[in-house]
């Protein structure tokens, strides 16, 4: 995300992105699925997540999770993260993500698939007096016109502690793979719009209003972009998750990257459904 720059694409492209989102949302009401608003996942609505994978034998479909970054110089960065999470084993999920990015700059724009991510999350335990602990890992493959050329591997650890007044989450992750250099910045940006950083660490807090099926969350995290010479970026965000029906949840968030090279406001919106594996 930090490396996005616009290149030669038609301005009408953003309408297509909106059409895709609208299509996703219209299909939402017809789908028969369930999503637990209490179980946060990356980007829904904030970057950090809890140490709880989707349920065993569940399939969670995030059809239209969209994010819009208000970058400098009137540039807008849209990203759509259609993803499927499968509860393949007890306390273990497999996740597939096919991000689609669209950059809308004053003069030019670009769009396309921005990589293919395959990841897993495994909860080591269920929370008792010991906090909930989870480990995860994944690879980001260079797929699509904005998917870059390198493969990145990521490992992460998550801790969740629940108190009567709130839940606290700590996330840390490290990504292995080639760094990009500042002198070929434009080239790499044109080719790679993936959301990756060398390392990321942060904390989040959420408060649930059980009788209203509503969760409110906030986070702050630091990340080191993949570019060698870039400075650490601090971000803060807040958001809500709301259960619309037993099968359908929605989320929305807003955040700000307030240090680093690409300071920007961003908003997120998503909806998800879950099905069972028969």
């Amino acid at each position: 995300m930090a490396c996005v720059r616009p290149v030669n694409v038609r301005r009408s492209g953003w309408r297509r992105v909106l059409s895709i989102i609208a299509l996703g949302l219209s299909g939402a009401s017809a789908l028969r699925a369930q999503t637990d608003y209490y179980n946060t996942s990356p980007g829904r609505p904030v970057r950090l997540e809890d140490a709880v994978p989707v349920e065993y034998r569940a399939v969670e479909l995030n059809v239209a999770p969209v994010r819009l970054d208000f970058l400098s110089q009137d540039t807008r960065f849209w990203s759509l993260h259609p993803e499927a999470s499968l509860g393949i084993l007890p306390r273990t999920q497999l996740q597939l993500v096919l991000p689609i990015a669209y950059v809308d700059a004053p003069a030019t724009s670009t769009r396309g698939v921005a990589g293919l991510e395959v990841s897993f999350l495994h909860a080591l335990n269920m929370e008792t007096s010991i906090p909930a602990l989870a480990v995860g890992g994944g690879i980001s493959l260079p797929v699509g016109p904005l998917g870059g050329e390198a493969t990145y591997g990521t490992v992460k650890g998550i801790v969740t502690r629940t108190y009567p007044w709130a839940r606290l989450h700590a996330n840390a992750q490290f990504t292995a793979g080639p760094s990009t250099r500042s002198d070929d910045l434009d080239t790499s940006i044109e080719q790679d719009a993936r959301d990756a950083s060398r390392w990321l660490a942060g904390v989040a807090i959420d408060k649930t209003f059980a009788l209203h099926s509503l969760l409110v969350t906030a986070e702050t995290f630091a990340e080191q972009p993949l570019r060698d010479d870039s400075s650490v970026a601090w971000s803060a965000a807040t958001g809500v998750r709301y259960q619309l029906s037993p099968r359908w949840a929605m989320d929305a968030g807003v955040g700000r990257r307030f240090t680093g090279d690409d300071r920007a406001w961003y908003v997120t919106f998503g909806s998800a459904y879950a099905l069972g594996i028969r």
Partner: protein
Amino acid sequence: MSSHRITVRRLTVCVSTLLAILATRPLLAQWSTAYHQFYRQASHNWEFRHNYPAADRLFNAFDYGHAILYETLLTEPTAPPSRLEQQEYDFITKRLLVKPPRLPLEESVIEVEYAKLVPEAKELFEWAHVLHRQVYDIWADERLSEERRDREVRDLLKYYLARRRAALSTRPKDMHLMEGQSYSLNFRRRYPKFNGLIWAYHWLQVGLYEPLVTGKTRKSRQSGVNAAVTRFREMLVDPPRRMPTVMPMTAAVAPEFSRRYPEIAIIFDNLHAMHDVISDILADGTIPRSEKRAEILHAVARYRDDTSSVTTVAEWRDMAEEMGVEQMGGRATPTWSAALVERRLRDAGVDPRPLPASGRHIFMSIPAQSFALPGGDEVQVFVYPDTASRALDTSKLDTARVAPPNMMIKWRAQPSLVIDGNMAAIIITNDEARRRQVRDALSALEKPNDR
């Protein structure tokens, strides 16, 4: 000197190892690998919610009641009984049950400390509640035939039992397991009103199956479910006077359901007994908090296994009857009695006159209670202990002639057979208007004022 150093070093290593083991043992005891599993994916998912929204919403409110009970008992052990008996009870009955939540609740948000104390027990309950809801779904789905429903329930039970660590036993347990322990009865003695509320919940949770299973049409199922919900709300008036005074048992409250699906009925009774046991453990001030997890896990294991305190299915049914269905809140749907038949006929304007007992028909296993009707007509009523017994007799009859296929019976007027639940009736008349009148009076069990 050197050997002394080695000895000291070895001693240090031994002591350190011992300390490490001692330090990790409590940690290991707290390490839980319980997990959530998604409900069985099927076309009938959430049908109960669609077709019976009022009852479905009540179950969402029940989630809160169970959760706040455990959390309060665990985190406020010295609170006065009024904390639950008044404060929470009033909130639940005056607000939550009046306008129940629209969705199932995330209980771990309400019972935060309890969920962390024994996630295994919480998962056990949640898994059984999933079974509860999915059986409702199957019987609420009007697209399914009875055979298909039975098949779906069988598959569902298989799915439930596949999680051995989260599934309750299908073998009935004796009452000693619930009422014969050192901690037993603590909760109900200290919190009679809240205990009555929980038992009223459990009455409705199992009682709803009866009208779903016995209703022959969508309308009769709807009215039966509504009647059960009304009965539940009546229990909360003037508490605890109208509340159950013994634990509702599925075999007594929902006998038809229990006969059809005995294993599931037993699971629910084990679940509800388990609820009471955990309440007792949490309410027992002599069990320190540090020991409650182990005590609960011990109890959970005994309700999960197929060996501890097992009794027979026949004994389980007898126990349910002996405890007294009226003390449990009553049967979920009224059953026929001779008095009810007479009242129905009278209400229909038929004016029945009971006749003295006569000999038993050779093709029926019980004698009839006969009523003379105006104009020389007659209705013979057979009231059985249950539907299964009635079906044993009526299934052998040619219903058009009201006689066994290989037998010729000479009736003094045209006979016709009416069957409903545990009752069979033979209407003997040549007056078709009268026949319709009697048939209508005896057809629908779920009529107002039958209770």
